[in-house]
């Protein structure tokens, strides 16, 4: 009977397995709060048994092999998570961009367009009852100025909000370019690591996080290639990242408002989901509201001017336009102004019809009636100015409410998907504590076994002395 040193090899392998197990558990514990981290487990297998050791005819095992370290990922859940994140990104951006819009329309006790409309047309109603009063004419002009200010302030606020959203699109494009470059770089590193049988789990996690961020911004979809790299494509199928190549997104100024149009390598592209889509939706929505506001201002100025010009002023002169007509282009909420001649001389405000006498308030009445006249045409909408303005405000509120409601639902879906992802890939400290105990005990047992093997070897060696 000779000395068998194979026990030491078995012990060494067992110690190594225990050590790696503790290291992996430690790594998991260390990254319990790292976003996108994928938990890892040690892959162990029994070593191949040896043939007829010790001439017994029996096959003895040769210990444990550490086959590798596995990251726990579910591709299906990861894809779903990216999709839901993109939808969430769109809705969040939309809600955040539109929330200030309703504030711009919000009617306080005074200062809003609604109150200014009431004040302006109400002043003409007062003038109807007092058609000879110069003071009321001055009040009419003042209310016209207030209405103009309300139009200016609201339009300016809407334009500012749209500008902010547009700036966010440009910033998002820069972020996507940085992230796309990172993904392309990680593609290369992962391909090399996989080719050299290295552990690429950490790199894959980094890439997953970057892809997730790109998806949140652009809704880009990813496809995993055979060599371990991923290809990212935008809504219209154009590749943002392919292997180690990243395309360049640009946000180019587009007439007439200079708003950003997103292009990929100089070509037009369509982004259908994500933060950029949400911002683009918001920009378009706010643009529509600005247009409606402009149409409202133009229609109101047109009808008031027509009615006003049909009568005679307090001096018996033919009436003129109440609101100024711009030198070029239509009246908008931006250039809406009371005519300078009326500002300078309120006696030029018309109350009565031509030839009907200074005590006639029929023109003032006709103008006062315009507020609730359902025949007013604003853009493509026909209705009273009150109703059209109320619809404008309520639609701004409805857009925020819809985005908010959808976001609540989407957040729940995203949280559920994230929980599913965590269920597969997340770290549980309980589990890792058990793993620590398990590998620690295995390590202790292996060490004990080595001591036994050492004692046995010593015993045999002493027999020969």
């Amino acid at each position, binding site marked *: 009977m000779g000395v068998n040193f194979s026990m030491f090899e078995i012990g060494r392998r067992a110690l190594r397995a225990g050590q790696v197990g503790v290291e992996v558990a430690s790594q998991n514990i260390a990254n319990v709060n790292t976003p996108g981290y994928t938990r890892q487990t040690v892959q162990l297998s029994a070593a191949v048994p040896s043939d007829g050791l010790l001439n017994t005819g029996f096959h003895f095992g040769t210990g444990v092999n550490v086959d590798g370290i596995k990251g726990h990922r579910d591709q299906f859940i990861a894809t779903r998570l990216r999709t839901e994140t993109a939808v969430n990104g769109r809705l969040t951006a939309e809600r955040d961009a539109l929330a200030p819009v309703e504030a711009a329309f919000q009617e306080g006790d005074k200062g809003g367009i609604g109150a200014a409309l009431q004040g302006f047309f109400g002043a003409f109603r007062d003038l109807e009852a007092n058609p000879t009063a110069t003071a009321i004419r001055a009040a009419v002009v003042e209310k016209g100025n207030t209405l103009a200010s309300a139009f200016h302030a609201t339009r300016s606020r809407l334009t500012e909000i749209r500008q902010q959203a547009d700036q966010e699109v440009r910033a998002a494009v820069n972020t996507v370019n940085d992230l796309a470059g990172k993904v392309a770089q990680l593609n290369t590193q992962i391909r090399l690591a996989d080719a050299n049988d290295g552990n690429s789990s950490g790199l894959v996690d980094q890439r997953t996080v970057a892809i997730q961020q790109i998806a949140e911004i652009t809704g880009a979809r990813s496809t995993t290639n055979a060599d371990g790299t991923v290809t990212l494509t935008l809504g219209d199928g154009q590749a943002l990242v392919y292997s180690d190549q990243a395309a360049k997104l640009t946000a180019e100024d587009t007439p007439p408002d200079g708003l950003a149009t997103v292009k990929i390598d100089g070509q037009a592209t369509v982004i259908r989901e994500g933060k950029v889509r949400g911002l683009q939706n918001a920009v378009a929505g706010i643009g529509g509201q600005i247009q409606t506001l402009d149409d409202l201002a133009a229609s109101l100025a047109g009808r008031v001017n027509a009615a006003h010009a049909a009568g005679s002023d307090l001096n018996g002169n033919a009436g003129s336009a109440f609101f100024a007509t711009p030198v070029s282009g239509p009246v908008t909420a931006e250039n809406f102004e009371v005519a300078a001649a009326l500002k300078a001389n309120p006696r030029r405000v018309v109350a009565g019809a031509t030839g009907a006498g200074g005590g006639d308030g029929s023109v003032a009445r006709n103008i006062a009636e315009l507020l609730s006249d359902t025949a007013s045409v604003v853009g493509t909408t026909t209705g009273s100015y009150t109703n059209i303005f109320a619809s404008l405000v309520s639609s701004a509120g409805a857009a925020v409410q819809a985005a908010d409601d959808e976001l609540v639902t989407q957040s729940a879906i995203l949280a559920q998907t994230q929980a599913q992802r965590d*269920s597969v890939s997340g770290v549980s400290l309980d589990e890792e504590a058990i793993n620590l105990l398990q590998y620690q005990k295995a390590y202790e047992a292996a060490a004990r076994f080595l001591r036994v093997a050492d004692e046995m070897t010593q015993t045999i060696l002493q027999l020969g002395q």
Partner: protein
Amino acid sequence: MLFRITDAASSARLTNQISTARQRVALSQEQLASGKRINRPSDDPVGTDTVIRLRTAQSQLERFTNNAAAGKETLLLGDGVLNQYQEVLDQAYALLTRAASDPTVVEAREPIAIELDGITARLQQLANAKNGDSFVFGGTRIAAPPFAVNGVLNPTASTEVALQVEPEGTLVATGVTAESFVTDATGSILDALKAASTAIRGTGNATADRATITGTLDRLPGFSSLSNIARTKLGERFNHLEEVTERLSQANLAVEQTVQRIENIDIAEAAVNLTTTNTALDAILQSSSKFGRRSLLDFLG
């Protein structure tokens, strides 16, 4: 199969629960503090739409109410002036009756003529009465009074001032023109009285003078009747405006109630909501501080 519950998932769920609870508390607090259920259009877009329309309608109702009040004031003023006009007309009738039956000499009639001239001037003054910048009976004509200084009736046509005092309502005249009660088919009261005054003083044709005096005397009941008709019109219009004012007041009240129902909160309900949401938040915070984030590691020693 049950999910593996990871620490990150537990944290995310807890964060979400606390955030949701805080949002609910904030909403309840905002509603209670403002007393309003709708604090921004997105709180209730349909309600916001309705409130804007109703507020506009309410503003119009208030303007109509103001116009009706102004109209009533003008009508009352007109009625008061016409009352005086009627009294002066009665004096003219009494004076002319005396002149027609008094056979005294021409010199003795002079005081009657002088008194009649005074009455004529007062009637002219009443017909030209002013209300601020405009003439009470001037109608839409404001540049000159109904009668010129020389007593000639203003030839410029005038119509009654009319106001709209109700949404979609017909116009209500807030006065009468002088022409409606100072002229009959023959001419103006002033011309008639001036002719009578001349006749009283005597033109040398006693028969013609008598005819003029009696003719004027005969026309006076007609003028009196015209004045009464004008007063009746003013009274009717005043009553109409009273009814309109009442309707406007009721409509305004109904609109205000509707707006409040849509816009305002039930304070008791909001207070209960605040308590409930606060309790829920406390419960989440307490449970998370007691049991949150414990793991096996806490028990290993």
